[in-house]
């Protein structure tokens, strides 16, 4: 049983808190660092930056990824940009403003101390990345350029054409490879973590499977860091890369790590709608398109006419109509929910009636096609490649899709989970974004955690453990975990059912999307729990995994991830059910203002909910961490 959840935030004024705490934390002397072995699972932005930085300090680092190269992590796909409170534009930005915006953007469901630290170190990230050679956009004077993003009132977003994620990851990956070359990081590619090993509730190592040979191996360490990304693929269709999954975090959860706020998921309003049942993933179209595109659907139900034949008076520019002040630029969750409403009403557009128009004809008439091409040319091209339609001539069709997960393993101020020795960074933890993440803040958080927070806090944990040897993988805990993984694999290969893993993943995704998607209610959430459970039983009895365990077997890899998604999906429903308020990405239909906006209940739900695993088939236990707001004033959002 876990006691009350203490964030271990030090006392003091938030503005000097992290500086002071860096001084107060225990240090490991440079010569002693090499006596410690640290495992880092995941080599995306968070993991690569952490592994490189810790290795530079002198720790013995073992880094693991199931990809063939660290450069392939999902972080590579981020397009838009990364925030930092540099105030290079002299437009009034500051650490405090970034902190304030992030807490507010998260709908007052994040921990103030963590967010302030994030805003503080954001400036160092830009320095670090630039020095590594990350080619951020520059102006003609050769200085760094910024843009405003996601409704922020200042220009604080740094970007690198449409590939900010790739360029930042190449920076972190090159720093990591420098350490591999120096022999300070032992890099294990194509190695998938399938269990966390604990001894007396402390994390002591992991079990991995080599996906090429099938070999199962135990690895011991003084500390384990998970940087394994988010769980958006529980919805099956999402903007996440195909291999993103929750397995590492979920297996740690089953070993005792608390999973916090699983119901906080972000649905991005501007994605290309699915075209058929076999759609494998959804593609994000940058949010910046909403600056010039106008969103509309026909006023009439089941209007079959092509967009251009629908006269102006028969179109419903519903965002402009409902939110005259913000119009098409309302926040992500508001734009998404309104799109769902019109599509559910039967006013959706496109062959499957599953989208809304994003129309550039007015902008083209006003600014000329060349101006629009200069701004969005690459996005229009991407759209045309996927849909076969030319957005200069016919309006784009868009629809919301799952994009990011704010929930994740619970961590304290030191980014350590409730299990001593288990640290969680990047999208895999629950920390900084509350109930909604602002655009361009995930890259910032992953790199803040990896470069500038974890390398300090891990020292504080390790400092008094000098006498401890690297845990022996011949120990009982390792042997049992290793056998458990082996048994699971044998089990899946022997079900011999009739349907593919993808079939069940797709069906699960539909349940999660319908009941735990953009709008949730009690009835639906209760159904989600029972229907997920029923489908899971069928999956366990009837899935078909062909081939063997001793070589590359993609179905075998997937089946284990999908099994974990079933359990996680159920927990999301439970979490959403018990949070009887609307906040950020979590919209409970029972809790809305008269105008249909999300209505928070600060008296009863101003906390993070962290769930404890109590065994298969048992009800999980809900723990809470009370959130305290000493600096940011809680307000109700309004975009009218």
């Amino acid at each position, binding site marked *: 049983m876990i006691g009350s959840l203490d964030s271990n935030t030090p006392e003091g004024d938030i503005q000097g808190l992290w500086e002071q705490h860096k001084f107060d934390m225990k240090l490991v002397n440079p010569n002693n660092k090499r006596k410690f072995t640290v495992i880092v699972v995941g080599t995306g932005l968070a993991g690569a*930056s952490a592994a*490189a*930085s810790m290795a*530079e300090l002198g720790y013995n680092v073992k880094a693991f990824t199931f*990809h*063939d*190269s660290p*450069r*392939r992590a*999902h972080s*590579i*796909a981020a397009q838009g940009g990364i925030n930092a409170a540099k105030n290079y534009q002299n437009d009034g930005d500051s650490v405090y403003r970034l902190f304030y915006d992030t807490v507010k953007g998260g709908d007052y469901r994040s921990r103030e101390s963590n967010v302030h630290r994030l805003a503080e170190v954001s400036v*160092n990230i*830009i*320095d*670090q*990345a*630039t*020095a*590594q*050679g990350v*080619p951020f956009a*520059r*102006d*003609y004077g*050769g*200085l*760094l350029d910024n843009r405003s993003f996601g409704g922020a009132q200042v220009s604080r977003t740094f970007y*690198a054409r449409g590939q900010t994620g*790739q*360029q930042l990851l190449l920076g972190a*990956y*090159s*720093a990591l*490879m*420098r350490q*591999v*070359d120096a022999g300070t990081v032992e890099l294990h*590619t194509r190695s998938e973590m399938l269990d966390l090993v604990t001894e007396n509730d402390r994390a002591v190592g992991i079990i991995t499977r080599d996906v*090429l040979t099938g070999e199962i191996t135990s690895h011991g360490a003084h500390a384990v860091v998970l940087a394994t990304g988010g769980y958006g693929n529980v919805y099956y269709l999402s903007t996440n*890369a*195909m291999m993103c999954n929750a397995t590492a975090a979920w297996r740690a959860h089953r070993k005792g790590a608390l999973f916090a706020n699983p119901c906080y998921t972000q649905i991005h309003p501007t994605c290309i709608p699915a*075209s*058929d049942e*076999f*759609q*494998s*993933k959804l*593609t994000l179209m940058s949010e910046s398109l909403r600056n010039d595109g106008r969103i509309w659907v026909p006023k009439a139900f089941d209007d079959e006419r092509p967009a251009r034949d629908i006269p102006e008076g028969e179109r419903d520019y519903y965002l402009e109509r409902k939110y005259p002040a913000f119009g098409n630029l309302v926040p992500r969750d508001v734009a998404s929910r309104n799109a769902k409403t019109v599509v559910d009403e039967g006013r959706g557009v496109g062959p499957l009636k599953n989208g809304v128009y994003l129309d550039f004809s007015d902008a083209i008439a006003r600014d000329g096609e060349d101006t629009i091409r200069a701004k969005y040319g690459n996005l229009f091209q991407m759209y045309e*490649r*996927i849909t*076969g339609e030319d957005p200069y001539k016919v309006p784009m069709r868009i629809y919301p899709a799952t994009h990011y997960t704010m929930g994740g393993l619970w961590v304290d101020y030191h980014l350590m989970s409730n299990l001593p020795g288990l640290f969680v960074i990047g999208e895999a933890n629950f920390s900084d974004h509350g109930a909604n993440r602002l655009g361009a803040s995930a890259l910032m958080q992953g790199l803040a955690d990896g470069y*500038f927070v974890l*390398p300090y806090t891990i020292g504080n944990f390790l400092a008094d453990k000098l006498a401890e040897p690297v845990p022996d993988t011949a120990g009982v805990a390792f042997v049992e975990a290793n056998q458990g993984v082996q048994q699971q694999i044998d089990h899946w290969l022997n079900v011999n059912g*009739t349907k*593919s893993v993808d079939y069940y993943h797709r069906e699960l995704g539909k349940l999660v999307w319908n009941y735990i998607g953009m709008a949730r209610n009690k009835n639906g959430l209760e159904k989600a729990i029972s229907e997920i459970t029923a489908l899971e039983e069928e999956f366990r009895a009837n899935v078909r995994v*062909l081939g063997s365990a001793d*070589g*590359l077997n993609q*179905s075998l890899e997937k089946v284990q991830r999908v099994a974990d998604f079933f359990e996680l999906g159920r927990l999301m429903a439970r979490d959403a059910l018990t949070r009887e308020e609307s906040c950020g990405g979590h919209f409970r239909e029972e809790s809305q203002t008269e105008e249909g906006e999300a209505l928070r209940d600060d008296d009863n739900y101003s906390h993070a909910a962290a769930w404890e695993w109590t065994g298969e088939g048992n009800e999980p236990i809900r723990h809470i961490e009370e959130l305290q707001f000493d600096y940011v004033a809680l307000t109700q959002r309004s975009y009218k």
Partner: protein
Amino acid sequence: MDQVISLTLKVWRQNGPDDAGAFQTYQAEGISQDASFLEMLDIVNERLIEEGTEPITFESDCREGICGTCGLMINGKAHGPELGTATCQLHMRKFNDGDHITIEPWRAVSFPVIKDLAVERTPLDLIIEAGGYISVPTGSAPDANLTPVPKEAADMAFDAAACIGCGACVAACPNSAAQLFTSAKLNHLNLLPQGQAERWQRAENMVETMEMYFGTCTNHGECHEACPKEISLDFIAFMNRDYVKAKIKNRKLAGQR
């Protein structure tokens, strides 16, 4: 809106690195032209599983043309017929009903086949490990705006940095040379002011590591044709120039030590 088409696929199947491998023919009936090429393979795989046949192994991840994981030889062309397009971005509307499509893995000595269409591309990482970085330990960086970078230099470095590490250039090259990849990676850093301190050492180390694993460039230009990011052949010329200079400079530098 779009048509449904049927295709005959000739797919390379190889059950592990040591298996000899052979082509197998599959009928892909009723494929929507809205599907991407990889979704077409997903559908074929789903049907194979139903029949009890092991699905075709191929790799992909982001399916947005940026992670560089996917890569197939489609009718003998790396990443298929469409210029500047990675396999995952290719859609079936580029094909016609009744087409025969041959699908093979990347063919290159340094990219051994793991299974079916999946290959191992580790030597690309080894080239980065050899010097594809700027040595700047975390925390030691000066303010980012301390060194202005002329826009032209920044833009050109970016053109090189756009490489997604897919290896199509190697697969397309008759000599399995990795000049386009290596030059993209090298020039990204060598063109920036930040990259100058290690410029010559980097050139020597990366080029020589490349030569340990890959073939010799004889200026065919097939690599550029196949490249989904349309990396310019000019970078290869820049790399050759830097390498020659590096040999001289590094010798001088060594003499000063």
